[in-house]
C-alpha cells in the first residue's frame, strides 16, 4: 500500500483529519526544504506537497509565485527536488506529493518522472494545470508505478466533473476551497461546507481541502467535513519572513507554526 493510502486509512481509524503543508522547494534553499519536511513530520504534519516551481504559475497567488521565482533564481531544477526527496526519505517516512505544472514533467519526460519519483520515494503527483481529460499519458505511467494522481474539484465544478475527478484520482481528491488562486485568506468562504457536502455525496475517496486555509481556526473548522486540510501560502510566507535567520532557527520556527496548525486537527 502506498504511503498516502496508509496515512488516510490510519487516520480514519483514529477519526481524525489529515494535516498537510505545501512548500516551495528551494526557497530559501534546498537543504532548508529538506530539513523543514523532516521537522514537519516530527511536528505532527501528516503529509507534504513538495512544490517544484514553474516560471508561469497560473494557479498561484503572489506569495507562492514569489517563492517560486526566488527558487528558480537559485537555479532549482526538478532533478534537484527529486534528490532532496531522496534525502528526506533517509530520515522520514512522511508521504510526499510532488506538486508542479505540466510543462515541467512534460519536459522531464513522463516515463522518466515515474521511474525517478518511485526511486526517490515520492508517493503522488498533483499537477495544477492538468485535468483528467488530458491525463491519459500521465496515468499510463503513474498507475504501474503506484504513484497517486490527484485531481482537483473546484466550487465551479459540475457534478459530472466531480465524478470525473473521483474516477481518475488516486490517493485523494483535492478540493479547491475558493474560486480563485492560491493565497492565504482571512476567512473561509461561507459556502465551503455546502461545496464539500456536495462533493462528498458524489465521491468515495478522501477529500482534502486547500487554497486559502491559513489559521488554526480554519483547520479546526474543516476537520469534521474534510478528510484532510492543506496549508500553503501561510507557511510559505512564514518561511519567507524567517529567511534571514540561520537555517536551524528558521526550521524550528516554521515547524512550530506548522505544529500549531496540525494540532488543530486533533
Amino acid at each position: 500500500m502506498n504511503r498516502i493510502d496508509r496515512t488516510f486509512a490510519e487516520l480514519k481509524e483514529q477519526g481524525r483529519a489529515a494535516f498537510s503543508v505545501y512548500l516551495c522547494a528551494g526557497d530559501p534553499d534546498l537543504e532548508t526544504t529538506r530539513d523543514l519536511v523532516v521537522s514537519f513530520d516530527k511536528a505532527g504534519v501528516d503529509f507534504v506537497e513538495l512544490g517544484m516551481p514553474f516560471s508561469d504559475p497560473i494557479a498561484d497567488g503572489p506569495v507562492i509565485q514569489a517563492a517560486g521565482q526566488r527558487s528558480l533564481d537559485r537555479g532549482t531544477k526538478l532533478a534537484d527536488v527529486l534528490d532532496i526527496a531522496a534525502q528526506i526519505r533517509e530520515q522520514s517516512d512522511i508521504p510526499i506529493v510532488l506538486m508542479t505544472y505540466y510543462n515541467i514533467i512534460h519536459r522531464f519526460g513522463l516515463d522518466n518522472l515515474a521511474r525517478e519519483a518511485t526511486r526517490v520515494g515520492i508517493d503522488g503527483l498533483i499537477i495544477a494545470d492538468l485535468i483528467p481529460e488530458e491525463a491519459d499519458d500521465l496515468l499510463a505511467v503513474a498507475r504501474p508505478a503506484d504513484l497517486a494522481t490527484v485531481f482537483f474539484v473546484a466550487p465551479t465544478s459540475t457534478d459530472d466533473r466531480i465524478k470525473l475527478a473521483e474516477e481518475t484520482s488516486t490517493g485523494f481528491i483535492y478540493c479547491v476551497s475558493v474560486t480563485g488562486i492560491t493565497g492565504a485568506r482571512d476567512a473561509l468562504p461561507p459556502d465551503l461546507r455546502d461545496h464539500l457536502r456536495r462533493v462528498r455525496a458524489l465521491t468515495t475517496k478522501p477529500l482534502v481541502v486547500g487554497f486559502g486555509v491559513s489559521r488554526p481556526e480554519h483547520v479546526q473548522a474543516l476537520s469534521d467535513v474534510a478528510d484532510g486540510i492543506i496549508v500553503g501560502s501561510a507557511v510559505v510566507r512564514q518561511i519567507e519572513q524567517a529567511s534571514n535567520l540561520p537555517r536551524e532557527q528558521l526550521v524550528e520556527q516554521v515547524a512550530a507554526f506548522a505544529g500549531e496548525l496540525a494540532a488543530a486537527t486533533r
Partner: protein
Amino acid sequence: MARPQQSTPDERGHFGPYGGMFVPETLMPALLELGREFQAARQDPAFRDELDGYLAEYAGRPTPLYFAARLSEVVESRVYLKREDLLHTGAHKINNTLGQALLARRMGKKRIIAETGAGQHGVATATAAAVFGMECVVYMGSEDMERQALNVFRMRQLGAEVREVTHGSRTLKDAITEAMRDYVTNVRTTNYVLGSILGPHPYPLIVREFQSVIGREAREQIVARERRQPDLLLACVGGGSNSIGLFHPFLGDESVDMLGVEAGGLGDGLGRHAARFLGGTLGVLHGDRTLVLQDASGQIARTHSISAGLDYAAVGPELVHLRDQGRVRFTTVSDDEALDAFSRLSKLEGIIPALESAHAVAQLLKMAGELPEIVIINLSGRGDKDVQAVAKHLGEELH
C-alpha cells in the same frame, strides 16, 4: 465559393498532438460553457448579423485589398496589401474583440479582461467594452507599457483599467499569466477575451473564426482583381491570429503557398528572438500544447523582438499542426530587417506599418526577384503606435 475547410480540431481542441485544455479545474466549466455558447452563436443568424453590422459600420469592414504598385515594381511581383491597418483602432485585433465581447454579452457577463503586448489587442478590447458598456481590465507587462506608451494612454482614455505586470519578463507572457489568474478568480462574472489563437480550447477556434473574415474577403477580392487565386500569402506570426485569419479560408486551395514570418530579433540564441519554429520545443504554456521557447528544465524562456506583438514564447497550436502537414511554412526576419521594411513601405507606398506587419513586408523584400506572380500580404496593423519606439531606435527624440 469557399471549399470545405481543413484543419478541424477534436471536441477538446486538439489539432493532432497540439492544442487541448491544460488549465486549472476551476476554469473548466467556464471554458466548456464558452465553447457551447460559441457554437450556438456562430449558428445564430441574429448573432452573426449583429457582429457583421458592427464590423461593417463600426470597425470599417470590408478592408481594401490594395494593389501596391511601387512596391510591386521593386520586388518584381504583383503585391496586394490586405489593409487591416485601416480598421478602427488600427489593427486586425478588433475583428476578434467585437466578436468575443458580443459573446460575453450573450453569456450575461459584464466584465471582460484581456492581456496585451503591443497594446493593440488591449485597445481593441477596451474599445469593444466601451461600445457595449462593459467593465474592462487589461494586463500589460511593464516593459511593453514603456515601448507602447501611446496605447496605454488610449486604453485608459477608453475607460479601461490597465494593470501593470512587473514579474517575469514583464512582457506578453506575463500579462497572459496574470490575466489567467484574474480569470480563475473572477470566472463567474468575467469573460477572458484572449487576443490570439492561443490558450486552452475553445480560444484557438474562436479567434480563428472571428479573424477568418480577413481571408474570406481577400479570397473574393483577389479573384475580382486577378481572376484567380494568389500564389503566396504572407503574414507575421505572434500568436498567429492575423496569419490564420488570412490563411484559413485558403487552406483548401492547393496552389496557394503560405508563409508565416516570426520575429528573428537579434539573431540566434535562446532569449534573443521569438522564433518558435526555429528554437521551440514541444511544451505546454497557458493552456495548450505547442512549440514553446523554453530551457532544458521546462522553464519558459525570455524572448526578444523589437515588436511587442511578436514577442511571445509560444505559438498557436493550429499553426504547428499546419506546419507538420507541410501546408504552411515559416521563416524569420530580424529586428533590423523589420525596421528597414518599416521605412521602405512608408516611403514606397505612403503606408506606415506596425512593426509586427513590417516583418511580413521585410520577408517580401528579402524574396525580391524570386517571388511568384501574385502575393497577398496581411498588413495587420498601422505603425502609429510604433513611431516613438522607432524614432528612439533611430536616435531621434520626439517631443
